[in-house]
């Protein structure tokens, strides 16, 4: 009996309860070989991480967005965050700080302070994008590098912004987040190299 093409089902890995998985079941020629079919779980990390796994600062942000009911209110919320963002000096609008793949111009700059935590500044020429950057700045500032690196991009889904933002903006948001992780990694390796 031939097994079905990829289908949804419960992940067999116990730690990933509730995650959406894709099964790739090998076609079976004879029933007796069924037990030998290995199920390959390709876990989509979208819901693999629970809100409670996120750094506290980011949890707060996610929480505030999950409560907002409609697109216009979410935009207002984004603009509110944009207004809260500490300003960035124009001199920091440098290519190495720029996030690629954004519809507008976005810059992010990390600072590793003596308390071992990373503090962020960001800027953008688009208010909505600045709001998105502000989410990340506020959510990831005061976190240790390890905490930042442990966050999976899936939290973006938790914000419930997907309906409000076009795919290109969502990608930009993802790119911002990945850039911040990359910069964090860079901070780690320069401190490790120095010690």
């Amino acid at each position, binding site marked *: 009996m031939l097994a079905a093409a990829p289908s949804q089902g419960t992940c067999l890995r116990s730690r990933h309860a509730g995650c959406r998985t894709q099964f790739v079941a090998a076609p079976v020629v004879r029933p007796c070989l069924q037990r030998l079919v290995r199920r390959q779980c390709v876990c989509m990390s979208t819901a693999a991480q629970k809100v409670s796994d996120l750094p506290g600062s980011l949890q707060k942000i996610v929480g505030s967005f999950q409560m907002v009911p409609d697109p*216009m209110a979410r935009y207002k919320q984004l603009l509110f965050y944009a*207004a809260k963002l500490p300003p960035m000096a124009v001199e920091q609008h440098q290519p190495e700080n720029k996030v690629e793949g954004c519809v507008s*111009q976005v810059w992010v700059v990390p600072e590793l302070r003596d308390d071992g935590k990373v503090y962020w500044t960001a800027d953008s*020429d*688009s*208010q*909505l994008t600045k709001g998105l950057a502000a989410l990340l700045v506020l959510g990831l500032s005061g976190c240790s590098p390890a905490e930042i690196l442990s966050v999976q991009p899936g939290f973006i889904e938790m914000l419930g912004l997907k309906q409000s933002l*076009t795919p290109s903006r969502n990608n930009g948001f993802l790119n911002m987040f990945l850039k911040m992780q990359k910069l964090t990694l860079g901070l780690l390796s320069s401190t490790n190299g120095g010690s």
Partner: protein
Amino acid sequence: MDTIRGAAGPPSCSWTPPSQSSSRSWRRRAASVAEAPSSSVSGLGAAIRKDVPILEQSINGRPLVYLDNAATSQKPLAVIQAMDDYYRHYNSNVHRGVHTLSAKATTAYEEARGKVARFVGAASDREIVFTRNASEAINLVAMTWGMDNLKPGDEIILSVAEHHSNLVPWQLVAQKTGAVLKHVRLTDSQELDMQHLRELVTPSTKLISLVHVSNMLGAVLDVEAVVDAARSVGAKVLLDACQSVPHMAIDVRALGVDWIVASGHKAMAPTGIGFLWGRYELLETMPPWMGGGEMIQDVFLDHSTYAAPPARFEAGTPSIAEAIGLGAACDYLAGIGMEQVHAYEQEIGCYLYERLAALDKVTIYGPPPSAKRGRASLASFNVGGLHATDVSTLLDTAGVAVRSGHHCTQPLHRHLGIPASARASCYIYNTFQEVDLFIDALKETIDFFGEMGME
């Protein structure tokens, strides 16, 4: 650098505004966007709308106001049905078959070529080469005529306002041949500067390739001046007619240029089909580009002989359904009459410009409608203090579709000193009411950001 506004003075439109609706909030809007058709040109939009099924839909609970026609146009039922008909009744590969279906398909495909030829006033249908789009057509000329004829020091004249598709292929050719690129600047009214063009032309100029109607500025090229300048040194002229072919009557023989390119999808035809028109004697001198089936005469293991144009440039199985769709679009537009189309677009374009210009803090790019050759029925603009993408995102919540970004004209935006712009572009199925709805939504958007403290 301050953005330059178009030349001052009220645009002298011959159009009289229909009774302006009071500024209703788009949140309370109830009336449909269509009005009863009238026999005057002003009623054209409403009459055409009925033929275009995609327009009757809601976006975010509001009627769709589609103002992104410079990016791509919507299709009339006649075009959709022509393609459906092809696949339902006579789909077959063209040119080689002897059986009935193949003969029908070939006839329809070649008839489409003839329709395009007549649509642009070509001397013969042998002068129309079907391509995937205008970008491919420009690359075709660049990689055949360009690679064959250009030598180190030869000059290609482009402009700062060109679409990337009329810049990048020439950059690639210049890198390979050692040719030199020069760029025409803008006048104060943001049209292409013909005086500057004349200064740039030298005996080494081999090609002038310019945009007929700018997709960002809306400026219309002085083709006569370009052709004069080119002929004075024996240079060739290529016209990027993407924004002109769909919107006005084109007569390639009257224009006097050597090639034009256009994309079907901006002229109510499907994506995946465009064309190059070239003077036949010129096409004959161009060597093949893509090799394969259809473009050959005889094939041996180590060499082949090639077909005459246009087949020489159409390797492999073509986009048959799409070509037939393009033919149907030419029929549809010719049925309205391109003079009518142009007249309507001048009216609605002028209305769009005037209503935008009346808003505080809005800067519109390109010349005013009162410019000598008019302007396209589009308006690229910025709102002071706001990023174009923020504006277009909020407009989308009101069901209004405009484009934001650099519109494939990064050098132009750099030249104007702006990071991006928003663009509303009309076509024959847009109505004056839709322009009103767009302006209402834009006002609400500006107020929204104003409330949030963004000035």
